[in-house]
């Protein structure tokens, strides 16, 4: 149990963060995180230690896709208002209220644009740009070649630009 608690400390932030940006709402992200942690408890010992991190991200991504399929939220791209507030609350060091509002708005736009990205672009953009995983880690998690990962990342960001231009409020960027 102690070893498992260490794993929880190590991975729960990554799992929750990925899930939140992937599915776009807190409740689903919490449920996914809970289910993934339970999967680690039940099946983590079956995975080789070097592959554990990549396995966890694959399980998380699959859980996110399942959640989206189940709740049919994929096309709706629902982002609850309280999530915007929650994100705004996480700003550190923004003493300027105008800047804080602008940053919160920017995050809202980014989240909305992320919801519009198809797979595997969304996964790769979140893993690389938000979670700062290395290309090697992403390669293991996605089972894609590094060059393919880079290509998808670039295309994903290009698509984000296109999506942002289609979202109301983008002009204020």
């Amino acid at each position, binding site marked *: *149990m102690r070893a*498992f*608690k260490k794993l*929880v400390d190590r991975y*729960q*932030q*990554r*799992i*929750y*963060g990925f899930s*939140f*940006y992937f599915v776009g709402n807190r409740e689903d*992200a*919490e449920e996914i*995180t*809970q289910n993934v*942690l*339970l999967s680690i*408890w039940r099946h983590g010992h079956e995975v080789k230690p070097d592959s554990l991190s990549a396995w966890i991200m694959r399980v998380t991504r699959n859980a996110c896709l399942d959640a989206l399929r189940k709740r049919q939220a994929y096309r709706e791209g629902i982002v609850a208002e309280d999530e915007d507030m929650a*994100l705004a609350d*996480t*700003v550190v060091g923004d003493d300027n209220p105008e800047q804080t509002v602008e*940053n919160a708005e*920017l*995050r809202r*736009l*980014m*989240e909305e644009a992320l919801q519009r990205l198809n797979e595997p672009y969304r996964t790769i*953009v979140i893993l690389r*740009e*938000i*979670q700062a995983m290395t290309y090697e880690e992403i390669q293991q998690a996605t089972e894609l070649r590094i060059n393919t990962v*880079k290509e998808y*990342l*670039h295309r994903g*960001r*290009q698509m*984000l*630009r296109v999506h*942002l*231009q289609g979202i109301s409020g983008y002009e204020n*960027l």
Partner: protein
Amino acid sequence: MKTSKRIPCADVRNQIETYIDGDLAEESIAVIDRHVSGCGACRREMALARRVHTALHALPPLDAPADVAERVFAQIRMERHETLRSWLFWEKKSWLAPAWCALGVAAAILLIWMGVRMVQTPEHIGTASDPEAEISLEELALAEAQTKWALGYISQVSRRTGLTVRDDIIGGRVAGALQQNVEKTVRP
């Protein structure tokens, strides 16, 4: 302006992300820089790409609420408890739960062993005042009391942990049987 025509806008835009990631060769960087400096549309695209890049990096990694882990630990505790429960109370109401079977078998072996031993060597049962006796009546009484206490303790602990203890099994089938058997053997 002349240099900006050396490479089409589409090519520049395809390379913007590689450019921002710093993965372009110096020559290519120079070509794009020249193009962008003379092309307003590509300059805006480059600026937007930089903002997207910066904004993505600025998204907080987010901490999972503390109660998520707590809920997981609670779920695991519950599952473990259920596993223990199903192990102890096989088919719930059946007193043939594996644990109790094992306990019953152990008690039965003990009783048989004690009975056989006492029947075969009654002269070895004496009193505390008889130092030569292997087993005194007082020792037997003490052993019986200790066995009953141990069984009672199992019952209490199980009850505290929320398990439905079959007191009738412990009292009637195990402790009671033990007591009767010992008494019958010692005082025929």
